[in-house]
């Protein structure tokens, strides 16, 4: 059968010839390859001090957005939680009371909104599902921590800083 990629190569195993049996040519070749790498620029970076530039569509930590007047956009519709393949999002909805119009844009808002960063696979489907443009994965890399419970991020960590600060 013809291979799909046409990259298939049939290898035959031949006994080593003399040059191969004395190892030296192969060793010299290997040494020349490694010494080239010795002088090459390292591909790694000194991470916390140095950071690689993220690409434009990098998906990092989530942030819950505010609108132009500084009100939370999220209306706790649950579409993000529904669309999340990793089931990382939970929320509790609450009704906006009189006098809270400057805090929440819609009449219903998320009183509790939690994302489990250990479950999240950063697929970005929550971002796509949101009808209110309330959630974006535009943050940094999620920092490491010691305890599992500390990876469940609540609104304190997710909601954008208020405008006037």
């Amino acid at each position, binding site marked *: 059968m013809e291979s799909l990629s046409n990259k298939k190569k049939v290898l035959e195993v031949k006994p080593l010839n003399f040059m191969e049996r004395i190892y030296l040519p192969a*060793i010299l070749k*290997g*040494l020349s390859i*490694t*010494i080239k*790498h010795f002088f090459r*620029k*390292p591909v*790694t970076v000194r991470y916390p001090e140095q950071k690689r530039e993220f690409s434009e569509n990098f998906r990092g930590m989530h942030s819950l957005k505010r609108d132009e007047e500084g009100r939370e956009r999220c209306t706790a519709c649950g579409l993000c939680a529904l669309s999340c393949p990793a089931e990382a999002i939970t929320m509790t909805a609450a009704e906006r009371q009189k006098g809270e119009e400057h805090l929440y844009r819609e009449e219903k808002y998320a009183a509790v909104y939690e994302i489990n960063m250990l479950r999240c696979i950063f697929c970005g489907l929550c971002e796509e599902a949101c009808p209110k443009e309330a959630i974006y994965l535009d943050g940094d890399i999620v920092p490491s921590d010691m305890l599992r419970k500390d990876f469940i991020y609540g609104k304190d960590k997710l909601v954008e800083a208020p405008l006037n600060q």
Partner: protein
Amino acid sequence: METTDIIIKIVLVVIIFAISLVIAMYSTYAERKVAAFFQDRVGPNRAGPWGILQPLADGGKMFLKEEIIPSSASGILFIVGPSLAILTACIGSAVIPWGQKLTIGSTVIDLQVTDINVGILYIFGVVSLGVYGIMIGGWASNNKYSLLGAIRAASQNISYEISMGLSIIALLLVTGSLSLREIAEQQHGFWADGWFTWNVFKQPLGFLIFIVCAFAETNRTPFDLPECETELVGGYHTEYSSMKLGFYLFAEYINMFISSAVMATLYFGGYNFPFMDMINSPNLVTILGVVFLFGKIFMFIFFFMWIRWTIPRFRYDQLMNLGWKGLIPLAIANIVITGVVITFLN
């Protein structure tokens, strides 16, 4: 021997001992850095600038680790093993000539601890004792992996010592002396009588055999079968912890340093360097000679590491084939050729 002589010798011993330890310590750091560079990485860089304090951190960690002696291990031998390994590693440096004579006022300081006239045989004896440390440690651990590693070490050392000895015989035909000091003196300068003075140019094949055997004797890749992590956990030091493990690891690096020094002395002119006769002050020549010797040693250590991060480990049958069917016949042929050439030249 006068008291000043004795004091000078003691000071020299202490200095060489300290240098061996420091070099062994920093070889661990160099190994990690070199490995990193070969793999396009940065390497340890947290402890101090460029990670320069890393060996101290490692050493401190080693000291603070819990000392575990397995209940089924045989008590005394378990301790004798690493002690013997580090002891034999350290005493090898006694006969290596580190430089020519240094004259301060009226005292002449010989930069060699002792110039015994069978220096090479001494080195050989010490090196073959080194395998006892591994053997005893592996045996005393009462662990299958350790025992396998120890057996491998023993058989590997025996196999490669033969070809190492044979390659040395060819060298002795050229030098006519067993004293390392005399061999170093014979390689004076770089060029004399229409040919290079360094033995590597007189014995290229012998040097090749010697360096391959040196890799095997120091248990370095591609001959690190006694401690290959992928098959034998840690080989002979599987059961060891804390500073006893540290001794084994240290011994390996000191061995690497000593065998680099031996190779530099036997084949690469020791403390001799090109155009050394153009410098008038003998003391300056001596000091430069020491610098050059250490340069050569570092070059060899780097080569050890370069090989380690290039070549994968040999399979056991390949190791034995190479030793018995490859190197020994080659070394014997080298003796014959050397003998014939010397007869013709005379």
